[in-house]
């Protein structure tokens, strides 16, 4: 088990966004999280990556208990040192890429491994160049983010996350900010990673892609998991009426 989130609750200004959600990721799994806007999918990822703090529940990465509900019913987080260790277990790819505009592509990949993980610069650089080659961006190592297309930026962002050697990679709607003709190149890279057994959690609106690439699908609505299972079952023969409605709207 790489990640285990139990009974997560999260509210924004009294609005309950996550209502007692449990969610776990095993090594080698590719999980797609689907659902309408405002269903809490992104918030779930943001809680898993410590960009938001949970109100109650527990988060465990590998052998580290990052957060757990304390005596007063409120979630208590582990010391910074443990959280930092957890952060080395995951990577996050944002909808808006969030590349560092003042670093060139190569430095976007190498800065954190050298600075945060204190790894050898030469070794990190070599790995980074190999990652860029894999992403089809060998010629862009010295380019700056604003010289890249959206699809290229997102592939750099994926490479940046992979440069940290994470155990699980999270994607928060990785193609939603892209022109339709650019989504293909990003989805191809994710598919390639799935074939290499990279553990991934993908929040997405690309239904055919989710069906093809994942081995587990979670359908969320209103802050709860409505239905989950094998993609063929969830997409092909949904058990819940709400899931059926949602998928129908998508296929229209």
């Amino acid at each position: 088990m790489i990640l285990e989130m139990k009974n997560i609750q999260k509210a924004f200004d009294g609005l309950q966004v996550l209502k007692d959600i449990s969610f776990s990721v095993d090594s080698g799994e590719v999980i797609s999280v689907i659902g309408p806007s405002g269903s809490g999918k992104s918030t779930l990822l943001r809680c898993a990556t410590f960009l938001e703090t949970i109100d109650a529940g527990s988060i465990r990465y590998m052998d580290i208990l990052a957060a757990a509900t304390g005596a007063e019913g409120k979630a208590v987080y582990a010391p910074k040192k443990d959280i930092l260790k957890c952060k080395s277990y995951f990577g996050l790819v944002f909808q808006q890429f969030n590349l560092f505009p003042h670093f060139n592509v190569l430095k976007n990949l190498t800065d954190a491994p050298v600075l945060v993980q204190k790894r050898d610069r030469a070794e990190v650089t070599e790995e980074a160049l190999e990652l860029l080659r894999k992403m089809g961006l060998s010629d862009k190592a010295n380019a700056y983010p604003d010289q890249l297309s959206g699809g290229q930026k997102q592939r750099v962002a994926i490479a940046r996350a992979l440069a940290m050697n994470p155990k699980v990679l999270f994607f928060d709607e990785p193609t939603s900010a892209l022109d339709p003709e650019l989504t293909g190149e990003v989805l191809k890279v994710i598919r390639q990673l799935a074939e290499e057994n990279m553990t991934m959690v993908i929040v997405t609106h690309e239904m055919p892609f989710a069906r093809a690439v994942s081995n587990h699908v979670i359908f969320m609505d209103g802050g709860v998991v409505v239905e989950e299972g094998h993609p063929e079952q969830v997409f092909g023969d949904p058990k819940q009426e709400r899931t059926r409605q949602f998928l129908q709207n998508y296929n229209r």
Partner: protein
Amino acid sequence: MSVPTMIIQLAIAFLTTMGIFGLTLLGSLPLGLLVYFGKTCRFRIIRGIVTVYISIMRGTPLMLQTMVIFFGPSLLFHTQVPDNWRFTAVVIAFIVNYAAYFAEIYRGGIESIPVGQTEAAAVLGYTRGQTFVRIILPQMFRRVMPSLTNEVITLVKDTSLAHVIGTVEMFTRARQIAVAPNSPGMLTFAVAAVFYYVFNYIMAFIMSRIEKKFSYFQ
């Protein structure tokens, strides 16, 4: 007084002008960052104090602030001030005043950076300090360069306010020369204007070069 003597006298006094200018920048650019931290501090008391400080600095004339700092010690505590206090008081007043403006400029620059930058750094494990120094600061400077250029040019001209407590920078010297008997008169002011203009022209040029240096991204 002959014209060449007048020009030399002004040039000597201009060294004081450049001294006020240089020391003010040297002090207020970093102090502005500290003021920014205070202004965005999570402790309400510090935030409140800094907000009042900025408000006063921007809401009262720099000329008055200079007088308060110069006369303050002797009027309030009846202490003897050292001989070089005149120059020191000007520099302190200017630093404290300009830091307030720089703090607000920095704040505008930092708040215009997308929150995704901080989030990306947080996920990658950067500490808050590392994020600020490596990710936020370079992007902030890129964004605030035009505003900083404005302030730098204003500062060159503001140095003339030092005359109010009798600091002999170029403006004070020009006035002394112009009203003296047998002086070149109006020509003195014209030469002083040229000094200011040329120096500002050079500063604007340097700032635009720095701005270009930053424009390799975005």
